[in-house]
C-alpha cells in the first residue's frame, strides 16, 4: 500500500530541507575558495571567477529548496484535511447504509462534504504535479554544479602550490552536488511512487 500523501509530502519537505542544508555547505565552500584564491594571487584568477558562480549557485539552490520545502509542507497539510474529509465521508456512507428515519435531513451536508473532498483531491493532484515540476527544475542546478567542479579541477591544475587545496574544494563541490542530487532523487521517487498508485486522499 502506498504511504498517505500527507506523509509523502512531509517526507519530500524533509528531503528538500536536507538539500538546503547541503547548499549552505556549498556557500561555505565558495567562501573558502574565495579566501584561498585571494591568497594565491594571480595564479588563480580563473578560480576566483568560479567562486562567484559557486556562491550564486548555492544561493539559488537554497532559495529553490526553501520554496519547494514550503510547497511540500503546505501540500502535506492539505492532504491531512483531505484525509479528514475522506474519513468523514466513510462515516457518512456507513450512516447512509443504516437508513435512519431522518437520513434525508443530513444529505445536503454529506453532499457538501463530498464536494469539498473532490475539490481538495483536485487541488492535491495539481499541487503534486507542480511539486514534481519544481524538483525536475532543481536538477539543472546539479548539472551546473558538476560543470563548475570540472572547471575548478582544470583551474586547480595551473595553481602551483595551491593546486592540492583547490582540488579539495573542487571535490567538495562535486560531493555536495551528489548529496543534493540524492535528496532530490529520494523526493522524486517518493512522489513517483504516489503518482503510480494514483491514490490521493488515503
Amino acid at each position, binding site marked *: 500500500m502506498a504511504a498517505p500523501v500527507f506523509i509523502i509530502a512531509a517526507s519530500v519537505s524533509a528531503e528538500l530541507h536536507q538539500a538546503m542544508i547541503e547548499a549552505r555547505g556549498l556557500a561555505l565552500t565558495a567562501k573558502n575558495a574565495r579566501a584561498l584564491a585571494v591568497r594565491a594571487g594571480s595564479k588563480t584568477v580563473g578560480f576566483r571567477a568560479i567562486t562567484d558562480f559557486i556562491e550564486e549557485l548555492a544561493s539559488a539552490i537554497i532559495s529553490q529548496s526553501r520554496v519547494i520545502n514550503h510547497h511540500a509542507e503546505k501540500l502535506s497539510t492539505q492532504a491531512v484535511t483531505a484525509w*479528514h474529509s475522506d474519513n*468523514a465521508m466513510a462515516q457518512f456512507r456507513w450512516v447512509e447504509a443504516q437508513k*435512519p*428515519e*431522518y437520513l434525508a*435531513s*443530513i444529505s445536503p*451536508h454529506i453532499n457538501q462534504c463530498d464536494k469539498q473532498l473532490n475539490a481538495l483531491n483536485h487541488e492535491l493532484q495539481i499541487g503534486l504535479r507542480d511539486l514534481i515540476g519544481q524538483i525536475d527544475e532543481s536538477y539543472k542546478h546539479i548539472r551546473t554544479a558538476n560543470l563548475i567542479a570540472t572547471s575548478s579541477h582544470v583551474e586547480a591544475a595551473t595553481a602551483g602550490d595551491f593546486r592540492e587545496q583547490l582540488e579539495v574544494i573542487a571535490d567538495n563541490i562535486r560531493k555536495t552536488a551528489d548529496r543534493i542530487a540524492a535528496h532530490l532523487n529520494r523526493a522524486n521517487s517518493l512522489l513517483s511512487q504516489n503518482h503510480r498508485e494514483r491514490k490521493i486522499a488515503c
Partner: protein
Amino acid sequence: MLATVLYEDGDHRWTMFARDPGKPDGIIDTNQYLIQSGDEAILLDPGGIELFAPMLTSVLKYVPAEGITKLFASHQDPDIISSLGLWDQALPNADLYSPWLWESFIRHFGMNNITYKAIPDEGMTITLGRIQLQFIPAHYLHSSGNFHVWDAKAGILMSGDVGAALEEPGAPLWVDSMERHGPKMKKFHQRWMPSDAAKHDWIRRVSALDIKIMAPQHGRLFKPPHVADFLRWFDQLPVGVAIKG
C-alpha cells in the same frame, strides 16, 4: 447503539444512547444523551470519534439534522468530544456549549462550522424549545472547567463523570444497590476527582435539587433512593488519592 427513553412528556424527551455493540475493545463505554423539546434538540457529551457514525445514525432515528441545534460538552476529554470534527461536518449550523476554559483546547478536535458558546464559570441557563436547561458548575469533578446539565422539569441531572462506574458489558441500566455499586465507582472517583473542597461544594448545591434521575456519562443511572445514597457515599469518600505524603 442501545437507545433508552428516560423521560417523555409531550415533545419533551430524554433519550440515552449507550452500550454500542461495535465499540472497539480498550475504549471506555460512554452514555450519550439527547434532549428534545419543541423542534429543538441538544446532544450531551456526544462522545469519542469512534462513536460518531453509530451516534449520528441513532440520533437521526429521533430527530432530523436541522433539529439538533445544540451540542454540549461538559469538559474537554476525548471520550466526551473527540468526535467534534465530524459533527462539525454533519451539523454545520449547530452551537457547542462548553466551558470557556477549554475553548482553545476543544478547537483542536476540529471546528470550522459549529459556533462555540463559552459557558462562564458560574454556569448559565439556556432555552431549548419550550424548556429551560441549566448548566451547573462542577469544576474539578474531575476537569478544572466542568458543567453538569439540570433539567428541572424532567428532574434529570446529567452528572458527567460524577457517579460514573466502569462496568462489564451487559450491566443493567439502573443502580439497584449502593452497597454493590459503590465498589465499582470507588477507584474511579478517588483517582480522577482531585478535590474534596470541590466535591463538598457540588454536593451542597445538588442536594437542593429534586433529582428524579441522576445520569452519569459512564455506567448505570441513579433513581431515588440511590441518588441520596450516592451523595452520602461520595461525601465520605476521600478523593485526590494520587497525592501521597
